[in-house]
Structure formats: C-alpha cells, structure tokens
C-alpha cells in the first residue's frame, strides 16, 4: 500500500511493475500504462519468454481490439506480478507487444486493479492503491 506521484499533464499514467519468472530470482521490471479501459494486464512476448514461459503453448487466447483491428493474444499465468507496492501470485497476463511508439512495455489493467481500491487524484498528481475495504477481492 502506498502512493506514487505522476504528472497530471502527461498523456498517460505511468507505473512500474515486476513480473516473476518460473525460476526463482528471475524478475523483469517494466514500465506500464495504468489503463482502467483495459480488461487485462498485458506484457510483451519477448519479456515473457525470457522469464521461462512459453506463450505459444497456451491453450487460452483472448480477443483484443487494437488500432489495426482484432488480434488474438495468448493468456498465461505468471508466478507473481507486482505493481504500486502490491503483489499477486499466480496472476493471468496477456502476451502482446504494444507499438514501440507507445514508449511503454505493457498495460496495467482491471485484472490487477480490481483486487484493490484505486484512487487517482489529479489535483495532487497521486495514485494510491490499497487493500479493498472489507478485505474481499
């Protein structure tokens, strides 16, 4: 639980995330866009592969609407995923490469955010993630 600062005038809300690999000690730190419009959390194929996962073997595929049409992305379960000071084990992510021009690695979507209470205070430039009231989630 904690607060991170952001620039309210930026085009997107940027946060950092850590993805843990199949083998202990393997971690990748990525720059993500906090995107409440995205159902899923999305990380790049190459990053997933370096962590020991094989998206090509995933039986689960999700449809994505992108700027260039509809695409299918494999869904995998990573050992753990952390962002904004919170960590979820056995977490589902979609493997998909955002355009390089986005300047980010992935999207932090509702699949992560819905486990917490999220506050975005543009007047202060603060993002706060804390455990859900009542402890459910």
């Amino acid at each position, binding site marked *: 639980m904690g607060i991170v600062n952001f620039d309210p005038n930026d085009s997107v809300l940027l946060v*950092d995330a850590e993805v843990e690999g199949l083998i202990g000690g*393997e*971690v990748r*730190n990525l*720059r993500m866009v906090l995107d409440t419009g*995205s159902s899923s959390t999305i990380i790049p194929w*190459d990053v997933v592969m370096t962590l020991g996962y094989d998206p090509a073997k995933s039986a689960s595929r999700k449809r994505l609407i992108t700027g260039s049409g*509809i695409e299918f992305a494999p869904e995998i379960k990573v050992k753990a995923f952390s962002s904004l000071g919170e960590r979820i084990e056995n977490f589902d992510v*979609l493997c998909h490469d955002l355009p390089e021009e986005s300047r980010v690695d992935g999207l932090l979507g509702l699949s992560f955010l819905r486990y917490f209470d999220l506050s975005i205070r543009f007047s202060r430039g603060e993002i706060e993630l804390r455990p859900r009231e009542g402890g459910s989630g």
Partner: protein
Amino acid sequence: MGKMETIEEMIEAHPNEWLLFVDYEADEMNRPKRGILVAHSKDRSEIYKQMKKYKGKVGVRYAGKLPKDVEVMFLWEL
C-alpha cells in the same frame, strides 16, 4: 559489466533511448532506483533481444516521454 548508477543518471545520459539495466534495486512501490546499465538503443526490439542474455533482476525503461502531440488510445479485451 558497468557500474551501479541511478536510473535518473541513465536517463540523463541516454535521452529518448530504451535502456536495459540489471541487478537493480527497487523501492517498495516497485520503482527501480539504481542498477547497472548494460544496453541502450533507439530500437526497443534490440533491447528485448539483449534482455535474453541476462539473468536475475532485469529492467527496461524508455528515457523520455510521449510526444505532447500524440494522442493515445490503448486496446482492450473483448
């Protein structure tokens, strides 16, 4: 291998490039603070390719911001 430096120092040294750093230290909010820069490039795919050579704690960061005149709309799942 290079020396430990702050992420801010890496960004200042290589503006508008993708950075790859290892053995990084992050704070409690998962923000990388310091690390060893092992590659930098204008090409993100080159950084992802280089990432395959390293083990342990590895981070990627773009040393810059989105241009102000770019409108961003990301994707969502059906």
